[in-house]
């Protein structure tokens, strides 16, 4: 079985969970005997392709690049703001929407040149490419929903350009894969899609014992401070403002708690102002966006990770954190909450309860220990191979019945 897959980024050049998800799924699909042609837009550095970790099965994965530059977490009118491989900011005049259309145009050509059985498009930036490939080839189309405009907006005040693309693509697709039931409900209810067309395939995680680092923020620890981490984009979707509100309540009760915020995004200034206004400068640290070793070191050094998302289709952070031995407090408005039980859960808006659970996690070491022990065991039951097998079942069904 040969699948023409459209995505927009791939590790290591990635700014979020999407690239990681594409990588894990693609590798395991290959293990299941699926031949994946992964199409990436040009601006995603070629350098990334040479660092695919599934090198042993590389012969089955080919990477095609096309001329396009796409940043997926932006609205349709956003002026592209990406960094080149030397860390220098590149400014483009064209909007993301234009890039999405350009990607679709190229996709149509590729679909005519290549032979394949199915089309699989990841995230909204690739949906039009998927639709174009379907029109050009007549092959069945699967859209993989990692997020929707409603998640990005954290409300109904959505980007109409993105919504239009999503709605048309969902209607055109033969099957839709949602990364959680949480997301499936949005697709069904907000886009009016037949629920039988939408399958839930929860993301997986690569479980292996991570490299251990010297703890960071040693000085704070030596002073007896407890550390709480937020790691993620700093946007309205992620609920960082609720995290800061909870921090205020925690600090009022226990001034020896320090909150670390790792990430960047369009709300950084607002969050910094909020921290200042609430008088929390001594208790909130802005670490910038931590990646790779720095991020892992931070995961290992803190007492608790908080994912306060307003609307989180899946949410990789708690799964990453537990692999580094740190438990999480996550919002109930997340897809990952459907697959993990050994975490603390809270409604993102319930900052009193968020503060209560942060304090409880610090106060009761037995619970902290059990969350780590049982959480690690639980996460080991969520490998990407499990997700890949579900995707293969959908592939098989489509090849058998639709083509």
């Amino acid at each position: 079985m040969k699948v023409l897959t459209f995505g927009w980024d791939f590790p290591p050049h990635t700014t979020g969970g999407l690239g990681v998800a594409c990588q894990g799924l693609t590798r395991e699909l290959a293990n299941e005997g699926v031949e994946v042609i992964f199409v990436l837009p040009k601006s995603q550095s070629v350098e990334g392709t040479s660092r695919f970790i599934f090198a042993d099965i590389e012969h089955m994965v080919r990477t095609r690049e096309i001329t396009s530059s796409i940043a997926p977490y932006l609205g349709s009118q956003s002026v592209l703001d990406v960094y080149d491989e030397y860390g220098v900011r590149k400014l483009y005049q064209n909007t993301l929407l234009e890039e999405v259309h350009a990607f679709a145009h190229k996709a149509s050509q590729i679909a005519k040149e290549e032979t394949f059985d199915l089309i699989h498009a990841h995230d909204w930036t690739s949906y039009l490419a998927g639709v174009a490939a379907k029109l050009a080839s007549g092959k069945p189309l699967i859209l993989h929903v990692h997020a929707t405009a409603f998640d990005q907006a954290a409300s109904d005040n959505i980007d109409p350009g993105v919504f239009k693309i999503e709605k048309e693509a969902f209607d055109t697709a033969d099957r839709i894969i949602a990364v959680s039931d949480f997301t499936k409900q949005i697709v069904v209810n907000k886009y009016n899609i037949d629920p039988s067309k939408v399958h839930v395939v929860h993301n997986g995680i690569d479980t292996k014992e991570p490299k251990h680092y010297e703890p960071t923020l040693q000085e704070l620890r030596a002073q007896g401070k407890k550390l709480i981490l937020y790691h993620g984009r700093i946007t309205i979707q992620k609920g960082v403002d609720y995290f800061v509100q909870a921090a205020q309540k925690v600090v009022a009760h226990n001034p020896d708690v320090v909150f670390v915020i790792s990430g960047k995004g369009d709300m950084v200034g607002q969050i910094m102002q909020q921290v200042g206004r609430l008088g929390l400068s001594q208790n909130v640290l802005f670490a910038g966006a931590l990646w790779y070793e720095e991020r892992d070191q931070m995961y290992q050094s803190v007492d608790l990770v908080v994912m306060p998302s307003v609307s989180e289709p899946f949410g990789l952070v708690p799964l990453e954190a537990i692999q580094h031995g740190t438990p999480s407090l996550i919002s109930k408005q997340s897809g990952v909450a459907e697959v993990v039980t050994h975490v603390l859960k809270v409604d993102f808006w319930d900052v009193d309860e968020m503060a209560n659970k942060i304090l409880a996690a610090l106060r009761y070491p037995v619970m902290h220990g059990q969350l780590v022990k049982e959480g690690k065991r639980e996460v080991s039951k969520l490998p990407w191979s499990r997700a890949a097998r579900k995707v293969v079942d959908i592939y098989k069904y489509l090849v058998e019945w639709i083509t």
Partner: protein
Amino acid sequence: MLTVCPYFHVHQPYRIKRYRVFDIGHDNEYFNDSSETDLNNRRIVEKVANKSYRPMNAVLLGLLEEHPEFRFALSFSGTVLDQFEAYAPDVLASFQEIVATGRVEILADTYHHSLAFFYSVPEFERQVAQHAKRIYELFGQTPRVFRNTELSYRNDLAKWCEDNGYLGIMAEGWDPILGWRSPNHVYHPPGCDKIKVLLKNYKLSDDVAFRFSNKAWESHPLSAETYSQWIHAHHGDGNTINLFMDYETFGEHQWEDTGIFNFIKALPELLMRHPDTTFKTPTETVESYDSVGEIDVPDVLTWADTDRDLTAWTGNDIQKDAIASIYAMEKDVIETEDMDLIEVWRKLQTSDHFYYMCTKWSEDGDVHAYFSPYESPYDAYVAFMNALSDLQLRVRHAVEKKQQHKGEKLKKPEKSVSFVQRLKQWFRWLVKKVLFLIHFRK
């Protein structure tokens, strides 16, 4: 001759509200949730009263009136009796009416539905005494057959019961304990020559308690005719069919629309159509039959899930921590001699709190999820430990105050207090002490 010996267990815990870390030291009320959730104890009692207690009591009273041979046993936790008194006094009155027929036996129990026997025998004894006192006051009976929380049982518990004059004790008729033997006989524990053990026939009990409304079950829907045939099939291979189940099976676990009330209404008559079938209370049962052999249970046996042990209450680390923390307070709490603090401490011993913290979801998670008012076992633990932390503070203050008081008292004689005054003081102290002891030991 085949005996049918039913007993229904009536219990509601005092569920702990969402008690937060900030509340420690500021809020002394742990059980007064007033939300629209299942943490609201009044709301639950009112709901279950409507679905189960009121209609089922009417059914039972009707059956007792209709069939002079019909007999059974009830067991109550003190915590449910207290809540009936506060939230549904008519339910308590209807239970009194049922017991007044003279054909309903009440079993011995711990007042607070606790696992105290396995953590502190002195505390266990105080709770059993408190329960017996309450039962006598409300129903005029002194229990003679013991059943422990969650039907938990062990050889040494049986020995304790024998030493304290009980005629019988109940346990799960679990195959690994019985081997080839049948639960439908009366047994005795090792080292005991007076007390007898009644074993639950879990297959026939669970057909009603768990499987009655299960559409995937091959025998669904279960008719009273079929069920009475199953019981009659034991004529000749046993003396007694012990049907033990939660009272709330009727109307709450199995809803009215499953036909459970009609089932139970029809059953006594169908059972007694066989001339050699009779109903007996547990006391009558143990007095009617000799033990056929010894039943050896060195490790705790319960009626819960597939393990039949205490792992549903004490299986994981947070459960162990919570239960160890509550019993670690015993000495200090008792020392306060403050009845309110002691009562709150006991309400926190109710086994349900630990059950809500159970994390073995994957195996029998559905059962636990159904019975938990919390969204997660960790929510249950946090509420419990926060409330416990507050209680610890209160107990510490009370103990400190008492010690201070004692210190002052010791100093007083130096101020040349007259002998008569000292005698008066001593007498007052003595009266207080005696009243305290009476309260527990009666």
